[in-house]
């Protein structure tokens, strides 16, 4: 399985390449990608350097152009597709039907991957994208159980990539508007979920409070781990109970599922986290490289090492990890 790693900056890209990535995915420095954060991503010269570094180490480079343009900014997505094509990257990761159409028409030779933001969770949806746009690969939303992934893999018209590690989206990606409902900015429209510009931290008599555009997301007692106020991970009141109504702060970790994922024919594992530091990328990529190599050598005798989990837990949200939707009881 190909190890596909995130890079939000040139140092992060180098960290991914040096620690064993098979492919690295990046975004341009604008709203055309789903990690549109201040100070992140690649301008032309940095993208050139990224490609050169990746090529030198025989690592593939993908560009995510995976948000949804609107009439007033459509041309920025066209420009991004053209830039990526002229750079000569190995694939574009795209979600929007119009952008897919443009990329396929204008650059017929370009490999296209359907982004997780394209929200294709079944064989018929994948077939639509394959027939219309000749996509080579699709990244699956984090909503399928392992047995559903297996069923899909058996009949999928394209190669499948699944998420292995990182922040856990619990909604079908590309079809979640929670963030824009509260802040006006969403992953689809702006490449940002619960954007940092809307976050406020306040120390109050009843504890530390996190707010998103003024809306109270969580309140922490002294000593409690105060996580980033992502909307789906807040504590809210439902029928007089206050709890994490949607999900707790946690990260996805499918390291222990490597043998199953390989056996059912998954072609690539994606590590989430273009917004993360080069140090984070180095740590996570090196653990996954070691685990995949171990599986390659040990096959059925694969046993995950304790220190891998320790390393990954230390860098996880709320210091805990989950199989997420892969595990039916989680659902």
């Amino acid at each position, binding site marked *: 399985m190909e190890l596909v790693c995130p890079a939000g900056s040139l140092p992060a890209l180098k960290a991914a390449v040096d620690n064993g990535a098979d492919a690295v995915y990046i975004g341009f420095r604008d709203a055309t990608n789903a990690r549109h954060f201040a100070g992140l991503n690649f301008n032309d010269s940095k993208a050139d350097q990224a490609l050169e570094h990746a090529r030198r180490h025989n690592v593939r480079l993908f560009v995510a152009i995976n948000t949804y343009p609107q009439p007033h900014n459509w041309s920025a997505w066209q420009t991004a597709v053209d830039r990526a094509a002229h750079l000569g990257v190995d694939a574009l990761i795209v979600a929007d039907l*119009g*952008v897919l159409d*443009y990329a396929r028409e204008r650059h017929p030779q370009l490999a296209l991957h359907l982004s997780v933001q394209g929200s294709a969770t079944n064989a018929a949806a994948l077939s639509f994208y394959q027939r219309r746009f000749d996509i080579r690969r699709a990244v699956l939303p984090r909503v399928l159980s392992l047995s*559903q992934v297996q069923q899909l893999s058996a009949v999928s018209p394209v190669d499948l990539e699944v998420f292995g590690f990182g922040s856990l989206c619990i909604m079908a990606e*590309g079809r979640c508007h929670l963030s*824009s409902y509260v802040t006006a900015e969403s992953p689809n429209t702006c490449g940002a979920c619960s954007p940092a510009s809307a976050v406020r931290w306040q120390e109050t008599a009843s504890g530390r409070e996190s707010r998103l555009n003024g809306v109270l997301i969580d*309140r922490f007692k002294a000593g409690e781990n105060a996580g980033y106020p992502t909307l789906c991970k807040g504590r809210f009141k439902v029928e007089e109970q206050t709890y994490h109504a949607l999900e707790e702060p946690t990260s996805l970790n499918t390291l222990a599922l490597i043998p199953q994922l390989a056996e059912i024919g998954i072609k690539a594992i994606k590590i989430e986290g273009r917004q993360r530091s080069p140090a984070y990328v180095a740590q996570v990529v090196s653990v996954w490289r070691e685990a995949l190599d171990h599986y390659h050598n040990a096959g059925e005798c694969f046993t995950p090492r304790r220190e891998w989990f320790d390393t990954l837990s230390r860098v996880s949200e709320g210091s805990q990890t989950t199989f997420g*939707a892969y595990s039916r009881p989680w659902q």
Partner: protein
Amino acid sequence: MQLSLGPIFYYWPRQQVEDFYHQALASPADIVYLGETVCPKRREVHPSEWLEMAAPLAEAGKQVVLSTLALIESRADLATLRKLCDQSGCLMEANDMAAVELLSERNLPFVAGPSINIYNSASLRVLQQAGMMRWVMPVELSRHTLQGILEEVQQFGLAQQVQTEIFSYGHLPLAYSARCFTARNRNLPKDDCQLSCLDYPDGIPVHTRENTSLFTLNGIQTLSGDIHNLLAEYHDMAAIGVDILRISPNSSNTFQVLEQFDRIRRGETLSNQLIASDQGAATFCNGYWYGKPGMDFT
């Protein structure tokens, strides 16, 4: 403009569904969407029975549209969808790209529901070529974006071929998950949810710890806490080329709301307060229309 009744998002007992569509017969709705769009486990009305329920509506002159699931995950979900596409014989609403594919394979026209991502005219054109005859704008888009898309649709010469429908009243469908939040609220696993959604005919309200209304839980679906209300934008929507306004059903006052949209259509002047008084303590939002946070109200 025409008025439509959207699909019922919630899980109601069969009798309540029958009563609802019986009431719809004499309502001013021109178009009625029916079918399960949220959870395949909801079988008070079996997938094949929706059409029987639709027959009197069609006889009463309503256009009937069969809506389909927004999140298709299992082989069984896909098989059910395939069967509906083969047998329905009426116009269908695709809420997942799976339905788009199956309907376009069969050369059947379809409506693209609000969970099909059409954010620009290039996307709209791809789907029009696949057989889309009507689109429901994704709920997070603004008037500004709508106007831009409709201008381009005009330039492409597609205005006569594609109708535009706007989600105009009701709790906004905001997200879909693998997880069932209603079962979670009861500490039940999804596979043994005991059909808990039946106990919440309008979903479960979620508030912040400061009692601000935030979301509504409805099985795997998350809706807005406030009610999106574009009644006041009626004439503006007509002016920029909207064809259909969708009213999303709730268990209490759907037909009064429809009535009020109809009264505006007939030239009466109404204020938002009128609807507010019917809805009790409900608060309204319309921020998305103005390009603001969806929960804002202008």
